[in-house]
């Protein structure tokens, strides 16, 4: 076996010295500027909120669902490998009822106006919060109900996958079923 040349990349990431939870030993990977830049520019070039006629990259909306799945599956696969190399095991399954698995996060980051980024402690329980901060009850005000909304929407997606039909909008008061595939 040939001798290998080793390279040392001096890194100065922000939460390297925290030891809040065992996940922090992966901070060399999660705080990597390159991978965060990749995700940012990916969402800049192929944003999920723009329809086809407004997108500014040619063919940005072609096969966008597949591309979405591919990107996230690759990111998760690499993360899983990093976890395995640090003896941490599989990515835990997210259950909204239980206190969130002890993986808090403390971004040591700050906004330009001086406020810190919000910190999430280990072992929190998620719930709805019912104050609206004066927003109207549209998409902004609905963020307070995220807990029930996320669970309901996940259940609907799972039902759609298992049953094989989705409810589509024909006119604002008349929703129909549409069979989109036959389960095997």
């Amino acid at each position: 076996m040939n001798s290998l040349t080793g390279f040392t990349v001096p890194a100065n990431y922000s939460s390297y010295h925290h030891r809040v939870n065992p996940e922090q030993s992966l901070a060399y990977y999660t705080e990597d500027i390159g991978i965060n830049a990749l995700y940012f520019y990916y969402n800049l070039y192929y944003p999920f909120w723009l329809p086809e006629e407004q997108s500014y990259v040619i063919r940005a909306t072609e096969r966008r669902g597949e591309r979405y799945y591919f990107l996230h599956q690759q990111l998760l696969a690499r993360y899983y490998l990093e976890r395995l190399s640090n003896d941490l095991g599989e990515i835990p399954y997210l259950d909204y009822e239980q206190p969130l698995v002890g993986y808090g996060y403390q971004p040591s980051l700050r906004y330009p106006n001086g406020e810190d980024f919000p910190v999430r402690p280990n072992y929190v329980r998620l719930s709805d919060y019912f104050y609206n901060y004066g927003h109207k009850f549209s998409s902004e005000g609905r963020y307070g109900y995220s807990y029930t909304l996320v669970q309901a929407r996940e259940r609907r997606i799972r039902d759609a996958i298992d049953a094989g039909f989705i409810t589509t909008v024909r006119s604002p008061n008349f929703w129909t079923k549409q069979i989109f595939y036959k389960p095997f």
Partner: protein
Amino acid sequence: MADLIESNPESRNPQYYGGLQEYGRHLLGYSYQEDPSALEHFETSLRDPAFYLLYKKIVLFFQSYKARLQPYANNELVYPGNRSFDS
């Protein structure tokens, strides 16, 4: 189907199925103030372990969907008249 989960404008019924990404990020970000948490900015979201927790579920949706589709028929996979040559 992928458009439904991602809730892009080609989704058939966004107010019924959509928004899993946005609300999931807000919920797991655990911010009781008005400023968005680290999960809600795209450039810091990969740092948070809850990103991977949330997206594991989404990737599992896709995989269970693909597991339920019919297998490919032979004529969809094979081009007739294809031969490979050894050069």
